[in-house]
């Protein structure tokens, strides 16, 4: 019991230390350099703003979390599907990749107006942007994972007369899992970014909406409080994936130093 506690404590300690250190440097840096609050508020000011506006922040945060998760879920589904396709087929790879790259070089913010006009202001554009921004890293990594499967492993299944789909299910997919989880770390953060920029562009709710309103009122600490809430939500989601990852791809990390 005590042991388990102290172990959990030991795993939580390093990130806590860095985060506290980071906030400390930020706080002290701002104080020493005399950075104004409307440029970069100190963490304590941010915290104060958070406490002051708490009850107004959370409904917005839930909204953002909701759109992020829905968009992210879609991104996983379609990213894995697409990644699998372009990972397997050299033809699809060469046919689709340039288009995807081109599409992803374009800031998604530019699509916000289009979506707003089609779907109206609200949840839908945010979900779509969160999805669009996050699916590409997933697809790229899954594709790479699938395409770099050792042919020896593939032969194990081929020698059994396995279908292409079996090959994917039994070798391609598990083999691509480390790639997949790596991409999730990127994709979840991008999903949040997507939700927030969609809300910045047009919405009545969400952290993004709160941020524009706050910044137009020169309430910069509140803007940063919003950012902090997003950051914390990102970290929590990451922690969930990290747990999943530890379970599912322990084999890949077996060398763990």
């Amino acid at each position, binding site marked *: 019991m005590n042991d388990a506690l102290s172990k959990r404590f030991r795993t939580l300690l390093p990130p806590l230390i860095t985060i506290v250190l980071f906030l400390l440097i930020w706080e002290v840096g701002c104080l020493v350099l005399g950075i104004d609050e409307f*440029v970069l508020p100190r963490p304590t000011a941010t915290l104060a703003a958070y406490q002051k506006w708490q009850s107004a922040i959370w409904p917005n945060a839930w909204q953002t979390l909701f759109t992020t998760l829905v968009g992210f879920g879609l991104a996983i589904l379609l990213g894995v599907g697409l990644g699998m396709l372009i990972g397997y087929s050299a033809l699809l790879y060469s046919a689709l990749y340039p288009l995807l790259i081109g599409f992803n070089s374009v800031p998604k913010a530019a699509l916000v107006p289009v979506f707003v006009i089609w779907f109206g202001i609200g949840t839908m554009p945010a979900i779509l942007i969160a999805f669009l921004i996050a699916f590409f890293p997933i697809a790229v990594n899954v594709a790479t994972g699938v395409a770099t499967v050792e042919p020896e492993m593939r032969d194990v299944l081929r020698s059994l007369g396995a279908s292409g789909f079996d090959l994917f299910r039994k070798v391609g997919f598990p083999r691509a899992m480390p790639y997949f989880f790596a991409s999730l770390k990127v994709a979840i953060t991008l999903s949040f970014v997507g939700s927030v920029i969609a809300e910045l562009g047009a919405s009545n709710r969400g952290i993004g909406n709160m941020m*524009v309103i706050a910044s137009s*009122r*020169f309430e910069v600490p509140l803007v940063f409080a919003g950012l902090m809430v997003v950051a914390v939500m990102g970290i929590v989601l990451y922690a969930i994936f990290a747990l999943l990852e530890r379970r599912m791809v322990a084999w890949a990390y077996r060398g763990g130093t």
Partner: protein
Amino acid sequence: AAPVSAPPAAQPPAITHIRFALDWAIEGPSSPFLVALDKGYFAAEGLSVVIDRGTGSAGTVSRIAGGAYEMGYADINAMMEFNVKNPDKALQAIGIVYNTAPMTVFTLKDKGINSPQDLVGKKLGAPAGDAGRRLFPLFASQNGFDPNAVEWVTMEPALREVSLAKGEVDAITAFYGSGWFGLTRNNVPPDDIVAFMYADYGLPLYGNAVMASPAYLAANADAVKGFMRGLARGWQDSLADPAAAVEIIKRREPLVDAEVEQQRLQLAIDRHFLNDEVRQNGFGAVDPARLARSIEMVAQGFELSPAPSPEAVFTDAYLPPKEQRMPPN
């Protein structure tokens, strides 16, 4: 700063560098600044001026206060709000450019909104920082309805007029020029446009002004005076020949459409640069009574306390003599 050794009389005065932030992208209405720059009016004052675009008044105010720019051009009402929230970084306006504040509520004929009071229960769209939206409570109370009786939708500027045209919202707040222009560009016939400019509905506010921090002004009084002299000439030239002014804009920013910018500039001249007060007092000046009233209103609208003093908000100490800043005929 005092020179270490007295310069020989023949040598021109030391050049002062000024980084200047505009309120928004470089467009027709920015011409007073760019004309002055292009024609060397600033250089003649011994100034080396760099003019950058802005991203809205709030950003510009912050950038001047933060020290990235020495001077800038932004909504005086936004500046007041900033000053109250950051008293130790307060800025001061030194010359009004938009004598008539441009905040306007736009709606379309078929919305059935014929007076401000009809806005009750409607859906309004605007960017969060839009001055018209920020001052809407004032507009509402001046016109006798509850400011909370409308629903706001936040959107980026590019979406605003489109949303109104598409029926996404019932009304928008915008600067008169950009709202009018945006609606007509989006195929709304001018006859369908209904506009309630705040200035016409009981809000005698001032609009965009040149501003800087009092500390900078005090330390660089001569340079700032030179700047305002140059700017007044740029303003006069823009009024005298808008087409030539737009030429200059186009040189600076090849992407603009000269025709469009000229329309914009003309609209700004007609509605904001020039009015009876300007014709009487000249460029940049304020009517102290009007300023005092408008400060009072803004303080009420933004819930600012204590209300800033007119002296802190505006000073005419850096304006050239009146005869140098009268509009051309």
